[in-house]
């Protein structure tokens, strides 16, 4: 499953790169791209684990840039 979410208040490009790296290291994620300009994150992962992975991703994103919110 491949899904795209909006990132609100993603202010720092370096953080976007960090998020991308962090999320890609979650088990089961086959593709991830943080689009700083469009303020979006695209995650591709297997269907069964998607919810679980998404939760982890949201947590990681919040840790990297606390002001940034993922709009689910």
């Amino acid at each position, binding site marked *: 499953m491949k899904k795209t979410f909006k990132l609100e208040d993603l202010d720092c*490009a*370096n953080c976007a790169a960090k998020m991308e790296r962090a999320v890609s290291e979650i088990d089961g994620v086959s593709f991830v*791209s943080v*689009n*700083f*300009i*469009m303020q979006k994150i695209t995650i591709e992962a297997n269907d069964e684990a998607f919810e679980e992975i998404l939760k982890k991703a949201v947590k990681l994103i919040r840790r990297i840039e*606390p002001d940034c919110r993922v709009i689910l």
Partner: protein
Amino acid sequence: MSKKQKKMLLRIIFAAVMTVTVQLLPLQGICRMAAFAVPYLTVGWDVLYSAARNIFGGQLFDEQFLMSIATLGAILLGEYTEAAGVMIFYQIGELFQNIAVGKSRRSIAALMDIRPDSAVVIRNGSEITVSPEEVTAGEIITVRPGEKIPLDGEITEGSTAVNTSALTGEGIPVDKTVGDSVNGGTLNLTGVIKIKTSGVYSESTVAKILELVENASEKKSKAEGFITKFARIYTPCVVVSALLLAFIPPLLFSEAPGEWIKRALIFLMVSCPCALVVSIPLSFFGGMGGASRSGILIKGADSLEALAKTDTVVFDKTGTITHGSFTVTAIHSEIISENALLDIAATAESYSNHPIAKAITEAYCEKIDKKRIGEVKEVAGFGISALIDGKKYFIGNAAFIKKIGLEPHECHISGTAIHIAEESEYLGHIIINDTVKPDSAAAISELKKVGIKKVVMLTGDSSHNAEEIGKLTGIDEIHCGLLPAQKVEKLEELISAGSKTAFVGDGINDAPVLARADIGIAMGTLGSDAAIEAADAVIMNDSLLKLPSAIRISGRTVHIVKQNIIFALTVKAVILILGAAGLANMWLAMLADVGVMVLAVLNSMRTMKKL
């Protein structure tokens, strides 16, 4: 400016005024420190807060952390003015970055704002305004003058002029009337029209283009990959050097550590690779935005980079250099009447979508009775064999006729000869010709001007015809009589000879070549999914003249990216050297770091400008 940004600005102004005031007051010792704490904390409390939180979150070497260490270090050394000043500059930089990036993000987004907002659909006799996503295929929508056409479809009522510039970059209005198809995302200029939609919004041209452009930055450029890797090692390296600088020289020369710690703190000021990390994707996105405004879709930053490096452009002939719309110019029949020959050819080709087939069926004025056709087999690169009225016919090029053991007659008229034969008898041929597009020659001479060394044409056509076209347009190298697979071979020869190739085709049966080239460019394909899928870049209208401007835009973008990388790295290196030698102070370091970022962001915005 948003509310958040305005608040920040107020904090900065307050802190700046306070710092200057406190500096002028004759305070000493702890009082002085306490007085400076007010502006310092006003402007920097959130930096300190997130630094502390990030340490617990495992985010070491993070920008805020380094800035906190640098300013707290300055306070310990008694440099209160510097501590407050550096924090103020840092926040000014952050604020600027925030505003500039937000602004450029919005202007790039606006550049591609071709998304229709609403559709007026007629349901049960009354007009209802809905979002384009809610309209189903086959419904009738009304579009008034000045409104964006929301979905692809066919005009059923009214006539108008349409501005397609949002999709094609071409500003000249196109007249459309009943029966013509229109694309979503284009602008209805003059008349009220009713359109029968041909599909849902998500399948429309405009939705596909938007999806493509928005996802374009998923494919990262090499430059960005390099900088991301570089950023990962740069910060730790600078921090480690700062530590070494703070402690090794004092130990070696048994000097007081104060001066060396001060120099080390300068290192921390320039330890964030932000200027690079922000400006590179911004430049590429700007370049892709600028290109899409001129009617060239580039599918990723990597493609844009490849396009800038191109030195050899390979064209397909049909539909690219030439119009691709054929007309029958002569019929030479050997045995049967000319009309009977055309009848066989038209009937056999009636199922095919190939432009040659279309020309033949168009030339045949009578209605084709499809019941007469039995089995039809297509032999790629040769032609077709078909059973008509129970008899087997072979229709194709000269090689096809030779393959079945017959001898085709050569024709003196230039054009493509379609030979027709029965199983044991050669019947004759039909000559079809295609004309060169008026702007092909101009486009090729423009290509040479933008630094293309070699222009090659690959075609399945006969040598006679191909050479004539080559001479007319100024093509350097022509390979003719090629089957689709041989086109790939020829391209591979060029690639292995070290050429950076761009292949330009219309997407009809040259998908493998499009895919094999360093960059595949499909053209004249508004609405053709297959070509958009296979190519790395799409020219939205038929004009080959877009190609040199696409190369120019990509060249400029890559150039700006390089400028930014070199500029930012040089300034940082100079500050590091000056700082280590004790020739720079914290003010200079901070100013340089913020300045580089500002200039890099402003420079990257140049990529969006039209050429």
